[in-house]
């Protein structure tokens, strides 16, 4: 006779396996969590050195427009403004184009168009940002030089490059948002005698509003954090932006500056403070997206 008590209470291979599985996967996720914590801690630590150790005030850093590390003047306002400006312009130009493509693909053209367009958008989303920078350098900058004058490098070229870069992403997300709108709502609207355009403006776009906004914010967040494509075409002069002249964004100054400063010096600390601002802004974009999706739900 089997000793059931002992058998049913006893250890078995499965128990060990279970412990191993939980251990391995739990460790992976913990490592990722820890990593994020460490990244944030490091960036906050390094980014606050300028204010804590080097005696630059936070207000001065944010509001002053003169950036002259050689003279120990660290005003990042011109870069912050330029970053925001090129991001906004890129997003605002991209939005109508992306909406038009979205409407055309989901509401007007036959479904086969979507099958053709999807892989193309996928490819465009996947094109590395240096390639967009190269396009900017070889195509956009000369055109800007002809039309506006100056060297062609500057905020116009940067905005155009960012616009080209984020438009595929925004378009693809907007198409998804339109497709998520219930087909029955379109039929119901048409059944009440609405034209297609009336259905699009009164039913489809309002229903997809949250998705459209999320797409725009997502694209702008990408533009704000983009470094190399911008750095290649903006001219890299850390002064207030102007139509013709060179300018610099937070990311472009980080790209060019990090290799030219020595770790621990105020000039280097100032760059880490810029990185911290970049981090803060990406968290803000993230928060905005959360806010939009939560409001929708």
């Amino acid at each position, binding site marked *: 006779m089997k000793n059931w008590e002992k058998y049913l209470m006893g250890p078995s291979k*499965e*128990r060990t396996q*279970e412990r*191993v*599985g*939980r251990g*391995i996967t*739990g460790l*992976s*996720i913990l*490592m*990722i*969590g820890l990593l*994020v*914590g460490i*990244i*944030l801690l*490091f*960036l906050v630590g390094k980014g606050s050195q300028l204010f804590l150790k080097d005696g630059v005030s936070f207000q001065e850093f944010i509001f002053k427009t003169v950036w002259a590390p050689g003279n120990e003047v660290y005003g990042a306002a011109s870069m912050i403004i330029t970053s925001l400006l090129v991001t906004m312009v890129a997003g605002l130009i991209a939005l109508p*184009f992306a909406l*038009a493509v979205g*409407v*055309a*693909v989901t509401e*007007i053209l036959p479904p086969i168009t979507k099958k053709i367009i999807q*892989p193309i958008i996928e*490819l465009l989303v*996947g*094109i*590395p*940002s*240096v*390639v967009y*920078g*190269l*396009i900017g*350098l*070889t*195509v956009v900058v000369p055109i800007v030089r002809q039309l506006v004058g100056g060297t062609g490098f500057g905020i116009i070229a940067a905005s155009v490059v960012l616009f*080209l870069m984020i438009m595929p992403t925004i378009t693809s997300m907007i198409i998804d948002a339109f497709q998520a709108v219930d087909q029955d709502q379109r039929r119901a609207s048409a059944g009440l005698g609405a*034209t*297609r*355009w009336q259905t699009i403006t009164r039913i489809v776009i309002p229903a997809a509003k949250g998705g459209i906004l999320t797409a725009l914010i997502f694209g702008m967040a990408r533009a704000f*954090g*983009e*470094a*190399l494509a911008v*750095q*290649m075409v903006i001219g890299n002069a850390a002064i207030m932006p102007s139509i013709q002249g060179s300018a610099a964004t937070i*990311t472009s100054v980080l*790209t060019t500056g990090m*290799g030219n400063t020595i*770790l621990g010096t105020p000039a280097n600390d100032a760059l*880490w403070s810029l*990185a911290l601002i*970049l*981090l803060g802004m*990406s*968290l803000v974009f*993230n928060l905005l997206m959360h806010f939009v999706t939560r409001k929708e739900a």
Partner: protein
Amino acid sequence: MTKAERIDRIATILILLLALAVVGLVITVLGLILIPGISHISWHFLTSSSQSFETGGGIFDQLFNSFYLVVLTLLISVPLALGAAIYLNEYAKQNWFTDSLRLAIEVLSSLPSIVIGLFGYLVFVLKWGLDFSLLAGALVLTILNLPLLTRTSETALSQVPNLQRQAGLGLGMAKWQVILKIVLPAALPGILTGAILSAGRIFGEAAALIYTAGQSTITVNYQDWNPFSPTSFLNPMRPAETLAVHIWKLNTEGLIPDASAVSSGAAAVLVLTILLFNLGARLIGHLISKRLEK
């Protein structure tokens, strides 16, 4: 025709014109970069080393470095992301701890690559003393790759029907065995597709690498298969300029006279490779799901 119908017609035409403008723009842009680029691609271009001051250099080292870095990155990031995805999808209970882990991954995905690159420069390159190296680059790309890879793996896992898990548990299997033997094989196409797509993304990454994998390439010996030998092409401790970094470098401080031809050729190679990754992902996902259906 009523007013509403007239507006409808005009709006439709306007929308189509705008969409057409976008298509034209995309074709122009792709054409401007690909046509001169592709005409510059040759066997010589792909298989010879780059030049510092003269014309006629190729991109062989950079191309190899890019692929090698993708392999190294996937070796680190796939197991880690898969483990995390399994935990989140199979084991995690719904509580504040899980929520904060998910939030952490989301925060990670929103960090600009230059910020992650600078973190890598500070920690891996300087603090850990890895210097500019493939390993430092792979670690940084791992950080960049983890959120997307975790998300695609989790989606793939969550699409496996629950019945299959229950059947396994009902046989008295450990949950871990159910995951390894039943859930993972079923989720494989999705996981693989996600991994290849992420490979395409990291293949073109440059901002995170300029301060980690470095902006220069040393002469290496492609016959030396010992990864611990300093001049071996497999040595993960050597600095390695990738194709994307090469394009950036040529256009910011390049000294060769044919910089624009070389960089458009390199850009074309980059875009075509990513196209191959995309097609490969589709194909493999398709093939595996077809095989499983049989």
